[in-house]
Structure formats: C-alpha cells, structure tokens
C-alpha cells in the first residue's frame, strides 16, 4: 500500500493535546499554529513528566536507572510528528520522551515507573523498558546499540511483505561507536530497508565527550559513507526536526532506503540521576539552556497564541492524574513472577 503524506492533524493526538482539545479551540489559529501548539504541548508534557520523575526518584518512590530527556524534547516530538500511527519506533533507555510523544498514555508510563501492573510493560520493565505494541512502540532498550538490529528487522519485515511504512530507531552519539551500528547501517543500506535512523547527538556518552568517542565527529558524514542519505539537524528546533524527518520519511516511502538524521541536541540534566555531571562545563550547559526547545518553539507562535504558563499547568495536571492513578494501582502478585518468561509461562 502506498500512502500520501498525512497532514499534521490526522496524526494521533498526544494525550496532552487530547486533554487540550476539550477546551474550545481558539478560532483564529491557523492549522500550522495549532500543530505547533500541539508540539509545545507534547514537549511540556514530557518536561512535566520528567520533572515529576526527579521528585519521585529523590523521594525513593521510583527506582532503577532514570535517564532524563530534558532539553532534547524537540527531537522526540518533531520526529513523531513526521511518523504515522502504523510506523514503528524502537528506542533506548532514555525514552520517556519518545514514548509520550508517540502517544503512550501518561498513566501507563507513570505506572511503569512505579512498577505497577497497570504500567505500559506491566511493571516488568521500568523506566528503561517502556513498551506499547498497540502503538508500535517496540521499546526502550538498555543495551547501547541493541535496538538497531531489531529496528532493521522490523523494517525488513515490511520490505518483504510490501507494506510501505517506516521503522524509526532512536539512538545516541555513543551508540554509533558500537559494532551493531555498523552492521545495521550496512544491512539497511544494502537491503534498502525502510529505516529512519535518528541519532540523538547530545555531545556526550555518559561522561565521555564526542571527540573522545569518535575519530570522525561528523556523524552524518560517517553514516553517509554507507551510501545512505544523511544530514545534521538543529535538534533544539522542533520545526527543523519535523521538516527533516518528513523529508527523510518521504524519501524512505519513495523507496530510497534508509535515511540517517543527526540531531544536534543536548541534555540539560546529568546522564542519569546521581551523575554529578563533573565532566561538563557549567557555562556550556548554560549556553545550551538558552536554546531550550520549548520557549524556542513558543517564540515562533503568533503573539498570544501560546500561554506557556497555562499550558504548563494543564500538562502538570495530566501528570498529577497519572501519579494519582499509579499510586492507586496494584502491583503484580509475587506468584506471577514467572509470567511472561515464555508463552507457556515455563
């Protein structure tokens, strides 16, 4: 089946925008403005969700490894805007943003952080393993580079069955050094797989700066050497991200094989909770904070179109409800320990 580029509003609305849509839509807003407002809403929801996670983690309510996406939200929402519901997404351990942008219900994601039975992975996975197959969100993967071959396989299945849709794989700059990146890039280009490779280059792999991870720090150029279209994008600008992702998706759907996008972005927080962030110069962090993707996008809206304060309140309210639901939700009984190990429950 071939498909036409869908207009933004035809895409699955995010929970936040769903919440919003109940409020009477401002009549004077153009489709484009509405769409950008939706992206702002999605970013605010991700931001509010993660800021709540910090509190919950510090309070010891949620545990495990928590990798915050704060500062990188434009990548998730911009790329998602270019995807349609029947496309697939494979992500990393830093995937709260990808899951929420994809439309995985906030309640289900928050419940997963709590390890509750109502979580999007039944509570088995936690922060690093969010799944929602109904939305073709094939999960957080905590092995750096480990999701890449899986994504190639999802794309291969579509290629073999003639389904014209895209598999999008998110991964970091550090992952590009793993052998699995190389093997996947070659397979995808060799087999013309409908694969969108989105490298979130936040300039660090844990505490290691890009220039000590890679001999060639121009990652888009490295990817291009496999013979696939590849270019770098301002990952702080949601509009630039969406435009680039659309171009890539169109190219993939037109049968031009895999595309690689290097999203130049930055994490405002440490690699993970408790990382003291010794290795980054505070001034560097400050410079990047000045390009916070949320105000950056809000400033592009017509005057008065975006009331950030009000929108933030709504997002916070959504998160409040999710926390309340998660608190109230049941955990899986210990007797079910062996559940999901195999279909037999061996």
């Amino acid at each position, binding site marked *: 089946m071939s498909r036409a580029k869908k207009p933004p509003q035809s895409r699955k609305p995010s929970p936040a925008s769903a919440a919003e849509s109940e409020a009477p839509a401002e009549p004077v807003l153009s489709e484009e403005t509405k769409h950008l407002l939706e992206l702002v809403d999605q970013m605010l929801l991700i931001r509010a969700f993660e800021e709540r996670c910090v509190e919950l983690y510090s309070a010891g309510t949620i545990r495990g490894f928590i990798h915050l996406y704060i500062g990188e939200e434009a990548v998730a929402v911009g790329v998602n805007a270019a995807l349609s519901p029947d496309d697939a997404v494979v992500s990393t351990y830093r995937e709260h943003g990808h899951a929420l942008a994809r439309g995985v219900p906030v309640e289900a994601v928050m419940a997963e952080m709590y390890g509750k039975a109502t979580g999007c992975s039944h509570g088995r996975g936690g922060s690093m393993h969010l799944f929602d197959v109904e939305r073709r969100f*094939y999960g957080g993967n905590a092995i750096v580079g480990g999701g890449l*071959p899986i994504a190639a*396989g999802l794309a291969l299945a579509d290629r073999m069955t003639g389904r014209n849709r895209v598999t999008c794989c998110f991964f970091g700059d550090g992952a590009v050094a793993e052998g699995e990146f190389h093997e*996947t890039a070659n397979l995808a280009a060799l087999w013309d797989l409908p694969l969108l490779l989105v490298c979130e280059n936040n300039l660090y792999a844990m505490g290691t700066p890009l220039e000590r991870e890679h001999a060639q720090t121009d990652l888009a150029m490295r990817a291009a050497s496999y013979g696939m279209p590849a270019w770098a994008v301002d990952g702080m600008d949601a509009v630039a991200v969406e435009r680039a992702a659309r171009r890539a998706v169109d190219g993939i759907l037109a049968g031009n094989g895999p595309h690689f996008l290097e999203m130049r972005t930055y994490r405002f927080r440490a690699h993970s909770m408790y990382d003291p962030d010794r290795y980054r110069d505070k001034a560097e962090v400050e410079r990047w904070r000045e390009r916070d993707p949320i105000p950056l996008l809000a400033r592009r809206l017509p005057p008065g179109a975006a009331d950030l304060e009000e929108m933030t309140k709504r997002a916070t309210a959504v998160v409040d409800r999710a926390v309340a639901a998660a608190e109230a939700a049941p955990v899986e009984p210990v007797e079910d320990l062996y559940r999901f190990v195999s*279909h037999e429950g061996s």
Partner: protein
Amino acid sequence: MAASAPGAAPETEPETEPETEQTSFREEIRAAMREALLADDRVFLMGEDVGGYGGAFGVSLGLVEEFGPDRIRDTPLSESGFVGAGIGAAVAGMRPIVEIMTVNFSLLALDQILNNAATLLHMSGGQVSVPVVIRMTTGAGRQLAAQHSHSLEGWYAGIPGIRVLSPGTLQDARYMLAPALADPDPVVIFEHGSLYNATGPTAPRPESFDIVSAAVRRTGRDVSLISHGGSLPKVLAAAEALAADGVSAEVVDLRSLRPLDGATIAASVARTHRAVVVDEGWRTGGLAAEIAARIAELAFYDLDAPVERVCGAEVPVPYPKHLEDAAIPQVADIVAAARRAVG
C-alpha cells in the same frame, strides 16, 4: 570455510549418497525447511552463504533456486546484525529461520539472543513475541581446532525465555523444525557437524510429535546413558559394546535441552540406579553438570553410585587428530564410565 570440512562436503556427498530410501541429516533438515517455506509465506531463511553457496554445510543447497534470494537471504558477515534483524522480523510477525554458520560465531550474536530474543517478551509484560528459529552447527570432530570446535549447548540451555533443541536422529532432524516455527517463543536448534552425512532409512511422518520430551532410545536395566545430538551415536555404540559384555544400558536422548525433561531422566535412573551423562561441551559448568545436579536432586535416594560425567576435556580443542580424539567423548570413554558406575 565450513564447506571444506571433509566430513561436511555438501557438494560431493549428496551425489555419492544413494538417493533411494536412504537419507541423511543434511537432506532431512533441508526437506524440513523446504516444507516450512512452502507451507507459510512468513517463513524465510537468512544467514551467511545460505543462498548461492548452499550453506556452509550444504544444508540449504538448491533452496535459493526454488524460493529466490528474498526468502533464502544471504547476509554479510554481521552476526549480531543479522541475528538481531531476524529477531526484529519475528517481532513484526515473520517466521525467520536464522542460520548462524557455527556456534563458535554465535558468541558475536549472544547479546541479541539473550538480551533481546529471550528477554523482550518479559520486559514488555507479554506484549512482544519473538517467534524466531535460530539454527547453528555445533561440535568438534573434524580437526577444525580451537576456534571452530565449541559445544556451547549448555550455555544456551541456561537462558530463560528460549527453547533449545538438539536433534540426534534423522526423524528429529526432519520433524523438529515445524513445531519450532509454531512456537511463539525463540527456539535454538543445534546441529552437530558430524551428523550431516549420517545416513539411514527415511523415517515415516510421525502421528504425533513433541519437542519437549526426552526419548528412551534403548531400554536397559543396569545404567542410564543420558546424552543428545552428536554424542547419541557414540552412546548407542557404547550401549552395544556394554551389552556384549553383559551390562544392560538404557539410552536416554534428551532431544530438548531447555526445558529439560527431568521426569524421563529421573524415571530411567529410578530403574537403573546408575547414570552416565555424555556431553561434548567442556565438563565444568557444561550441560552435563546441570543434568548431574538434577539427577542428584530428583533421584538422590535411587542413586547407587555417583553420576559419571563424560565430557569434553577442558582445553581449547587441539588440531591433531589424536589430541582432538582425546579431547572429546569417545565410545571407549563412555563404556569405561558405565563400568565405573556399575562398579
């Protein structure tokens, strides 16, 4: 490379094999794949040189001509990449048969097999099924030296979330694949390199066929010889030799290495009170260790003697024939262990 295994010369052998009622492991596995490919469009074979070359051991010879390069898919040398792609394709609903040329190279894909194939279902709370079948050649015996002679079945048999099969008979070579493909979970099938040319009469299509239970290949009273795959012929030969000697040995073919059929093993030991476990893997921490431990747990009070383990010597397998022979279980070793057991 593997194609140069004297014992595994696909191109020469098939010709020389009598094509009448006789058949070989290689032909039975090929027939099983052919049947699966014909029966289900979602099935495809992927691996290094499975196409034009016909598979390192000639197992897939002729399939690409019949099914085309899309479904008989040659891959680059990228074990982690193409095994992971097979896992992803299975997640998407396909039924891939991924061939890893030999178990030695599967180490390069072990992260994908353990951390993804075996784990996705659980991590996702039951949402992500991985109906992939991974076939790989295993074992020593062809003077391929330290990097081409591993038997790591025991490691795979220890991974929760996957099923592990080890055909030791022509019938299992022929009929294990279909139920493996029907399994919604990952299945790893080990094919011992020294069996490909093993021939025998074509087995009839079985009425019912399971891939969970062990089989008693020969009944006996005095000692249970427990084994699987490539060691099975040696164990049967040992049982023969022991019989000539007045020792009645029962031969248990595990067939499934995960899950293990503890009931059949325990029942046999309950009858014979003595057990010898034969596995080509390194002794320490190998499959034989688990089986010995299980027997001691399930049949502790039935045992009249310590469980004997006949395993691979703990060396990287050496090249020269006399040293390789000394490094892996031989009929004489099995006979000697059985004698020790019966005291």
